[in-house]
């Protein structure tokens, strides 16, 4: 995913999107695909049916607060979300997102993006462009070792390489 510029629509939410909203407890027994259908339903019942691969999620402060459930990040990735932007991230969510290869980027520009705007993201150059408004925003690069992990396809892929595992590791 590095290098390529990708374009998608923005889904915009507020502060404090927690892991119960991203991966509701009542649906946790379902498999990853079933659980993903409930992603964000408490605040946006249409999210799972509207989002398309390559779309981007923008939010305010404290994205991913709450439990350690990795399904919060996996659900977004399953639905095709290409990256999550927020003013700040909860620590475990941030680690989980990087570990599964979902870029999580600090984006402090309140009001720069509205729901439905077309956005392009150039991860390598660290640039977000709001095609709808014509404005571009720099995003600060992630620390190098985290970029490497995303580029390797996530933590399991890095481990697979380290241990020489032949089978696919999901």
């Amino acid at each position: 995913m590095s290098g390529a510029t990708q374009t998608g629509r923005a889904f915009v939410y507020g502060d404090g999107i927690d892991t119960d909203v991203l991966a509701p407890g009542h649906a946790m027994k379902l498999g990853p695909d079933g659980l993903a259908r409930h992603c964000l339903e408490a605040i946006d019942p249409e999210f799972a049916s509207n989002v398309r691969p390559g779309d981007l999620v923008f939010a305010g402060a404290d994205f991913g607060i709450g439990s350690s459930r990795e399904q919060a990040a996996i659900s977004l990735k399953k639905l095709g979300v290409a990256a999550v932007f927020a003013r700040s991230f909860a620590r475990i969510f941030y680690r989980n997102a990087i570990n599964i290869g979902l870029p999580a980027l600090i984006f402090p520009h309140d009001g720069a993006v509205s729901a439905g705007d077309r956005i392009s993201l150039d991860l390598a150059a660290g640039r977000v462009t709001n095609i709808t408004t014509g404005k571009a925003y720099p995003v600060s690069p992630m620390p190098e070792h985290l970029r490497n992990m995303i580029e390797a396809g996530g933590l399991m892929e890095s481990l697979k390489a380290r241990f020489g595992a032949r089978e696919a590791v999901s």
Partner: protein
Amino acid sequence: MRIVVTDARSEEIRTVPKPATLAQKILARAAGQSHVTPGDIVTVRVDLAMAHDSSGPRRWQARLEALGTGLWDPSRVVIVSDHYVPAVDAESAAILKTTRDFARDYGVKHFYDMRGICHVILPEHGHLRPGLFIAGGDSHTTNAGAFGCYAAGFGATDMTAIAATGETWTTVPHTIRVNIEGKPGGCVTSKDMMLALCRELGMGNHFKAIEFGGAAVRAMDMEARTVLANMTAELGGEVGLVEPDETTLAHIRAHGGTADDTDITRWRSDHDAPYERVLTLDAAALAPQVAAPHSPANSADVTVHAGVAIDQAYIGACVGAKLSDLHMAAAVLRGRSVADGVRLLVAPASAKVTDAAARDGTLAILTGAGAVMLPSGCGACAGLGAGLLAEGEVCLSSTNRNFKGRMGHKDAEVWLGSPFTVAASAVTGKITDPRSLLAERSRAA
């Protein structure tokens, strides 16, 4: 940012050349360095890895098999079945079976099957010692920080990597020191202090270490201190730490753990430690707190919300159903009854808690007042077990978080309070200042 990667591990006491916080000292030891600086990314050896039935084996097994590594050290792994217990349907039964089979097949000696909630199990069974680096597959792993452990929560992929390699990376955190001073008034608990801190400090202290000290903390027993460390997760912190003292060591030794007197001098912040912030909470001025839906930071004095009608009162969770919590509830409920139209559900945090509460008469007081006893486990707290809420219902709960949809229907309301406040509200059917009920009692006595 300096990257320090090392496989070295050193158990000997090192002299720390520069002033350091407790968090820095533990990470330095775990990373095999003499000193680490906030902002450094270090690779650390894990002393103890903990996971439960939801976060552990069912999410590790296939990946460990694919990697072909097995567990790096089964003796350093603790597995606790607490989230889906007891099974309520075929899916939860299968999850529990996977957990049991994994523990057997991978030689996990420290496997606790339906013995209680993981964070309560660790200190109850002597697993904690000051200075350990603990990685847990649960956000409230911070709980163990009350014993001077660097205990942080990790997601399933991080935990799989830890299970396979015994190591992980972390950023050395900045430390915020919170001094809690003064003698708290009646019915004011460490839970009230944390609800007030969620409001004052906010929930965005991501990646920070929060260190609790001061006279009020020194005066607390270990169960009360774990509430501070546990709810550091609500503050957004990486770890919540209390420097060990005589109380810590006595508790560890009484529960079959190992500790050395020198742990007290070794595992404390230097007097000139580089704190990012130091703040003081005056416990003497604090009233019992309740947090309104849907955030622990929505807290206020109980008097502000007194009178809100409730359908359910819940005493449960790692943070709110330890023996001392049941004692608080019993102090209010003795000789009283739960109000008509309200249900009081009590899920003791562990089998040992249930047993102790049965022996000392606490359970009889609770059930005599009309409480319904539930299994020890996460249950309603995690939205997985018995005790969930219907649309529009209101619950006052001794748990630690009240996010939308967590305890059942997304349009249910969960309020948070101490066991005193939950029990008092169960008696009246509405959110009630527990001081009024206990004052009545002392006037009557």
